[in-house]
């Protein structure tokens, strides 16, 4: 399950997708909409994607991760559209026979998602502005 969605992300579905008989360790990461970033308040976030390429990149990330860790199953879902505080923006789940691998692989996957998957967020502030977030630009 590597996908983008306009619906709420269900952690149970991510876990369901990765649990397997020979995997003793499952790590789930959820990125949620945080109210404060460096002291600045957020009212909502709006996500857009270059969808076809984003899904291709998710598949490439899975392939990269599988070269490095003995992954049983992996799932990534990224939400699009307008999200409120505490909504889940992204979910990553990885199962492996042992926990160390599951932690490392899940960390790698979310780091790669943030680095290379063409998705952008627009930050809606309490002042009514809406600013695209482009790190480093």
């Amino acid at each position: 399950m590597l996908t983008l969605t306009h619906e709420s992300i269900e952690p149970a579905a991510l876990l369901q997708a990765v649990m397997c008989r020979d995997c003793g360790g499952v790590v789930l990461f959820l990125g949620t909409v945080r109210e404060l970033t460096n002291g600045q308040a957020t009212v909502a976030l709006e996500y857009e994607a270059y969808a076809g390429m984003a899904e291709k990149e998710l598949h490439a990330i899975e392939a990269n991760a599988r070269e490095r860790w003995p992954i049983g199953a992996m799932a990534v879902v990224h939400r699009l559209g307008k999200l409120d505080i505490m909504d889940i923006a992204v979910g990553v789940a990885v199962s492996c026979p042992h926990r160390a691998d599951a932690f490392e692989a899940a960390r790698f996957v979310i780091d790669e998602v943030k680095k290379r998957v063409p998705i952008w967020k627009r930050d809606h502030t309490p002042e009514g502005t809406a600013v695209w977030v482009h790190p480093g630009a």
Partner: protein
Amino acid sequence: MTIVVELFARLREIAGTPYLELELPDSATLAVVRWQLAERVPEAASLLSKSAIAVNECYADETMILQSGDRIAVLPPVSGG
């Protein structure tokens, strides 16, 4: 050849359009696309210089030679997650 370039996020906002049509010489590289874009949307020059370019939904570098029908997208620094 005519190439359609898709723009995202703040780039689209600055350009005021999600698509730009560029007229390129045959065998033009991606570097030419960058150069023409900066000329068409000068206010976006700084953000363009920090943006990646995708050809047919894959990251591509400046030396890539374009073919008619290629789908180009300009991707400002991503902020998913």
